[in-house]
């Protein structure tokens, strides 16, 4: 258990981040890089390895934020982990982007119950509902889904809301009275992906590299 090294990638939003879990010491590099993910992502990985005194061949598994999110961003992540998994003969771990966002809310603010709402553009929102489970990991209460802004219904219970849909559609979203707090500035990060991935790795929830396919949720694109 002590010798595990996981490299994690989060490329689903305008922020590109990469994290390295080296025997449970997690380091991360990130950048607000809009359309430049392809230019920075591998460099981040190498820099993290250099700083930890590791080589790429020491990595035991790769994980990534598999969606929903920016279609192009997700394909940057998928291309990277498919290729690393294949070339290094190591398994890949797919992590929900919304779960990673919920986990980041926990890392930043200790939130243990959160409704996640990410802007999906075109007046739609990716939603998920997460609660803290065992091992300090946020676990889904329901499947992630896509909904139009008008049809968004936030559970009226003592929960937090997190995600950029809050500021993007501020005027159109009605926040129920029981909501305890909201965070519109939390984005999914590679370190959050990494935390979830490690747990999944031990539970053998890994996949062949070729199965690292984005979960777009929005499947009707034409």
């Amino acid at each position, binding site marked *: 258990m002590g010798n595990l090294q996981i490299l994690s990638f989060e490329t689903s939003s305008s922020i590109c981040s990469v994290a390295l879990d080296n025997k449970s010491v997690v380091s991360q590099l990130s950048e607000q890089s809009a359309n430049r993910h*392809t230019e920075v992502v591998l*460099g981040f990985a190498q820099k993290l390895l250099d700083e930890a005194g590791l080589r790429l061949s020491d990595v035991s598994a790769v994980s990534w934020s598999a969606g929903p999110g920016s*279609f*192009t961003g997700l394909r940057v992540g998928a*291309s*990277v982990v498919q*290729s690393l998994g294949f*070339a290094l003969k190591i398994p890949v771990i797919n992590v929900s982007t919304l779960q990673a966002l919920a986990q980041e809310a926990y890392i930043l603010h200790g939130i243990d119950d959160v409704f996640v709402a990410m802007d999906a553009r075109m007046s739609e929102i990716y939603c998920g509902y997460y609660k803290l489970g065992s091992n300090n990991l946020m676990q889904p209460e329901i499947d992630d889904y896509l909904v139009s802004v008008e049809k968004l219904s936030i559970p009226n219970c003592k929960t937090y809301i997190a995600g950029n849909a809050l500021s993007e559609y501020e005027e159109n979203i009605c926040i129920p009275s029981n909501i305890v707090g909201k965070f519109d500035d939390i984005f999914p990060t590679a370190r959050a992906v990494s935390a979830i991935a490690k747990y999944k790795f031990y539970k053998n929830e890994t996949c062949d590299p070729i199965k690292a396919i*984005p979960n*777009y949720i929005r499947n009707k694109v034409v």
Partner: protein
Amino acid sequence: MKVLGIETSCDESAAAIYCDKDGLLSHKVYSQTVHSEHGGVVPELAARDHIRKTLGLIEDALSEAKCSKDDVDAIAYTAGPGLAGALLVGSMMGKTIAYAWNKPSIAVNHMEGHLLAPMLEDSAPKPPFVALIVSGGHTMLVDVQQIGEYRLLGETVDDAAGEAFDKVARLLNLGKYTGSEVAKIAELGDKKRFKFPRPMTKTRNLDFSFSGLKTKVLYEYQSIENPVEQDKADIAWAFQEAVIETLVKKCKLALQDTRLNALVLAGGVGANKYLRQRLAEELGDNSVFYPRIEFCTDNAAMIAYAGWWNLSQGRKDLSLAVKVKPRWKLV
């Protein structure tokens, strides 16, 4: 030296291994079918299919060539021109595998790949020659003094020839709206019924224009009450004839101007049987070189070859940054 080539610039995912000693060791292509109902390649659907298929093709190409990581000397990938989202998949994969295997990578220009495709054949042309690259996105005549030394002789001023075929398929409401359907139905056409103009053939310049032909097709088609398949076939033939005669005339002119005597035909429209036949008739069998059909359409064999050639010239990339170039110009 062995090079793995990866191609995902449009609607074909492909991987291949080229060896400078033994030639092409393997090549795998998957042609996407998701676009058929949409009247042209939908960029988002293309990118989604590439991410599902490309890695499997890479694995197959390597195993068929009996190559492992240690046998591969470099990885070549198409970086442009093409659809940004589609290019991204193959480019990112190529660069990442190169990174993981600690090998150099080479960003290949897709058009250079097409231009070099005939080099994969036993009867490969020897430069200098003139190349006609004609596909869905491009129509250009290039003076190739030697590999890597290109001069643009002429190109389309509006629609590419392949694009004109695709649009005519849409206008005539043919099957899956692909240019090859126009060629197919044209075979049944009456050769005398319509005659369309040969655009820009009265000047000596080597540019092409195919946009106006669409309008001619539209007019003829609309002037027919209740058109039947035969009417479509007659129009398709006249259209194809106009495009092909224009291409042939300009090729002859280009050979005259450059005083060269070999012509290389490349690109997707190069698979058009009638174009091949007409070029051979007009220029003589010995002066026209074209790759087999499967190397006319998009493939990775030509990318692996172009990658090997660039590598042999000392060009390689050890950086970790990937930059796709959707509008990368060959010359």
